């Protein structure tokens, strides 16, 4: 009988990254991982090591046709081999630069602390919004551009008491607007709607109302931000569907905004 309890959890990082722990050991180690940033760093470094291991084996290379197969499987039309380089057409080059800038801005957001959510959820939100923008490539690209433009920050509104529902605000300071993406929102009663509030100079300023779809999702494309003043937070309450001037019910979701 193995007794993994006797190992110090730190000693297991290498074996975990190699995939050499039994299912039980791995589950226990993951519980420890959740509590230790140092251990997570260690695992991620050992994964880099593991990723290199295969290069110590016999020389091998895939056939030229594999690239096309990979692209076809991901539902892509065959692209020229140099697709990674920005093309000469102005639009593509601009988009590429934008995306690189977006990565930097997303990474920046990841370092913000309280208002930050995991990369995975940021990406999921982007995908969700992209899907909800309809099938037209142009419309989807425009929405993505808006979410992912340089300087746009992501603010997570969380529900008090219940971690499940959430709203993400893509916060575009330069263009004075935000994009709302809600998920797992509970249905509202007849005649009611969710309403967004900005907390400006300590006072709630009314913003848009919206209703979730049956799957709990809601998205609002362009929400103007209140001019002037310092906006410190955003919150959501349930209000009559025409909207209120002052909140009439408790705050359901709230999140603090990064300082400019």
């Amino acid at each position, binding site marked *: 009988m193995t007794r993994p309890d006797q190992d110090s959890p730190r000693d297991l990082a290498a074996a975990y990254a190699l995939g050499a722990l039994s299912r039980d050991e791995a589950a226990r180690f993951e519980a420890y991982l959740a509590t230790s940033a140092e251990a997570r760093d260690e695992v991620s470094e050992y994964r880099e090591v593991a*990723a290199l291991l295969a290069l110590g084996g016999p020389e091998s290379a895939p056939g030229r046709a594999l690239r096309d*197969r990979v692209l076809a499987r991901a539902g892509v039309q065959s692209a020229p*081999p140099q697709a990674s380089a920005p093309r000469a057409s102005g639009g593509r080059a601009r988009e590429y630069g934008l995306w690189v800038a977006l990565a930097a801005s997303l990474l920046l957001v990841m370092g913000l602390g309280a208002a930050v959510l995991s990369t995975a959820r940021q990406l999921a939100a982007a995908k969700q919004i992209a899907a909800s923008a309809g099938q037209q490539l142009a419309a989807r690209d425009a929405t993505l551009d808006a979410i992912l433009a340089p300087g746009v920050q992501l603010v997570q509104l969380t529900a008090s008491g219940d971690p499940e529902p959430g709203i993400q605000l893509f916060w575009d300071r330069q263009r004075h607007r935000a994009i709302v993406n809600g998920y797992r929102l509970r249905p509202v009663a007849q005649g009611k709607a969710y309403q967004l509030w900005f907390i400006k100079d300590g006072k709630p300023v009314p913003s848009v109302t919206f209703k979730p779809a049956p799957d709990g999702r809601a998205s609002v494309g362009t929400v103007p931000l209140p001019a002037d003043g310092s906006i410190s937070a955003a919150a959501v309450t349930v209000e009559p569907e025409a909207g209120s001037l002052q909140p009439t019910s408790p705050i359901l979701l709230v999140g603090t905004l990064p300082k400019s």
Partner: protein
Amino acid sequence: MSDGAPHSVSAADFALVARAAAGDQRAIGPLYDRYGAVLYAVAYRIVGQAADAEEVVADAFAQAWRDAPRFDAGRGSVAGWLTMIARSRALDLVRARTRRDRITASAAADRPEHSPAMGDFRPDPAGALEHAERRREVRQALASLSAPQREAIELAYFEGLSQSEIAERLQEPLGTVKTRVRLGMQKLRECLRPFYFERGQ
């Protein structure tokens, strides 16, 4: 502040995964150009056969495309994530093949002496050079381990065995196997740190 910096995900890789997550299929080509060769190496080493290795790589990218929205930069690099996917698909295939072979009683593994020619894959000389340099360093690092350390690590990574299974296979005490894995990986880490895929972004 020591956290974050050493293993932060490269911005270019992250942007590609973000694009894939957002449904932009054009991100897959550049990801393949960056990591196709190493995913193939992982797959080939595990399945030991070119056609199956290619199937694994195609599977792995299809899964990466589906899983992109769940990619978590806090857990490691894009290269680490992709190779984990490829390893796991390859091990799945080997396990399925083992079951099938048992049924048909044809255990002969198809291990061709020659794989397709090098030079097909990387059009740019700089990339090929870097690839060759990495290969050399990894070989050297592996050669610096004791044979039992190397064996334990390879059984874990390429055959998907747990430490207990390795101990059983080798008829060695579990504690010994654990120590080999740990010390061997520590040594590899010291040798290979400058050659991680993350380097240089």
